[in-house]
């Protein structure tokens, strides 16, 4: 089921190999007012995420008595695209906001926060293809930065078909001119897929290759996420807390299983 990983001559528009991620940088704790935050650069994507909560829900009638609610917003800055876009949310933004929520919800112990909300706000400052995946990846890190226990980190990237080939992590050009795009979000430890969309034309076999390749990509992203979480602790916290941070996700999950 996993695609053949034979190294090929084939090079992509930006010089990457078929199974190579774009340069990826994640930074945690970048906003002082948010309870948690993260900044991600993935290719030319630049996205900043702020997390607030768990906190009281306004307006109150949106709260739930037996569980917390996760509220998300995916929003693009007017200057993030060419040409400029209106700051009013588009239909695409509304759809992405929805799938972003579904992608992150399985990782959070919402049932621990009755009557409360966790709010994740993502601002795309520059868009370069694959913003929904980068947003989800950054949101996971921001959630941890907010001290919210998680079942697993959620890492996300897309795989697609361009010029007849299955390739990892489509850039803007490949996205717009390719044959297919499969964004997925993945919880590496739990081996579960939380986001799955697909557009274009793929055979069932190609589609499965895409998922396999995306999963590989997500595992690499996961390592960068862990680094970003650790680095934050290194700068700000004591040695002991670093250890804690490393075991943070592990513990949360164990706690969940008991």
């Amino acid at each position, binding site marked *: *089921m996993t695609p053949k990983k034979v190294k090929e001559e084939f090079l992509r528009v930006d010089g990457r190999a078929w199974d190579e991620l774009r340069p990826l940088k994640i930074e945690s704790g970048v906003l002082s007012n948010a309870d948690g935050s993260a900044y991600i650069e993935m290719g030319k994507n630049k996205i900043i995420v702020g997390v607030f909560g768990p906190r009281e829900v306004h307006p109150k009638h949106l709260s739930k008595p037996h569980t917390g609610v996760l509220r998300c917003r995916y929003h693009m800055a007017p200057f993030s695209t060419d*040409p400029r876009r209106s700051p009013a949310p588009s*239909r*695409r933004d*509304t*759809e992405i*906001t*929805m*799938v972003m929520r*579904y992608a992150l*919800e*399985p990782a959070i112990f919402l049932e621990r926060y009755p009557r409360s909300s966790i709010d994740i706000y993502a601002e795309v400052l520059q868009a370069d293809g694959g913003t929904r995946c980068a947003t989800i990846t950054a949101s996971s890190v921001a959630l941890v930065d907010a001290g919210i226990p998680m079942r697993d980190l959620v890492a996300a990237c897309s795989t697609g078909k361009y010029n007849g080939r299955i390739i990892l992590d489509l850039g803007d050009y490949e996205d717009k001119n390719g044959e*297919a795009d*499969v964004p997925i979000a993945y*919880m590496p430890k*739990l*081996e*579960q*897929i*939380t*986001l*799955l*969309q*697909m*557009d*274009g*034309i*793929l*055979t*069932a076999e190609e*589609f*499965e290759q895409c*998922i*396999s390749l995306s*999963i590989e990509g997500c595992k690499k992203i996961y390592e960068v996420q862990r680094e970003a979480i650790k680095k934050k602790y290194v700068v700000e916290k004591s040695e002991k807390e670093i250890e804690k941070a490393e075991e943070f996700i592990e513990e949360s999950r164990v706690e969940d299983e008991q």
Partner: protein
Amino acid sequence: MMSSKYGIASRLKSKRIQKLISSGKRADGRGFDEYRQITIKTNVLEKAEGSAEVFIGNTRVLVGVKIGVGTPFEDTPGEGVLVCNAEFVPIASPFFEPGPPDENSIELARIVDRGLRSAGVVDFSKLDLIPGKLVHVINIDIYILNYDGNLIDASAFAAIAALRTSVKPVYEVKEGEVKPTGVKEKLEVLKTPIAVTMVKIGNSLLVDPSADEEEVMETRITVTLEDEGNICTIQKSGSEPLSFDEIKKAVNIAKVKASEIRSKIAGGEG
């Protein structure tokens, strides 16, 4: 997804449905991979350029296609435009309220839209009139008349069935202006994408969920396939994850169901 908006199933009802399913049964006696009765009526409206009404059980969706003239998108100046819109009108359910499209109706319209677009149902490059200025605009309006689950499939079937019966007004282009000739010709439809929606309840995948099943579902997946059996759109929704194996299984189910239904839609015409 529907659960949050369309009324929370009582714990009892929820348990009953889940128990039934874990014993391999559905409340209405269907098999897990069985659709309810599907009825497709085309050309149900005279004033629209194309129309179809689809019944899946008690779910009822009407689609009207209007084809007019408008400006192209900035990044595809030489191509026609297709716009999908869905209205959850309040006659369809006591839980629907009048007002602008919400999250659910936007998602529905976008899944249908993406399915048509990915499959390549029309050749957009043949739909221009004055490149960069005026093109044909195809408006697909999805009208939910009665809600009993699985709006996506009903809407997608109605949309492609309506498109397949659509006619396109013929315009005369002269000195930078277009004039209607009064003549209409058949719209060339190249593909017939079919959406197959499944929900996961317990460990089972069920096709064509009823409203009750949507209330208790954990997650939902829609796989749209085109005529050659290729996948053209997938959408996962809902708060629970899926494993790779479950996804593969869903694709397999969808492939089988889609070709069954396609013959129904393609055959439903004169």
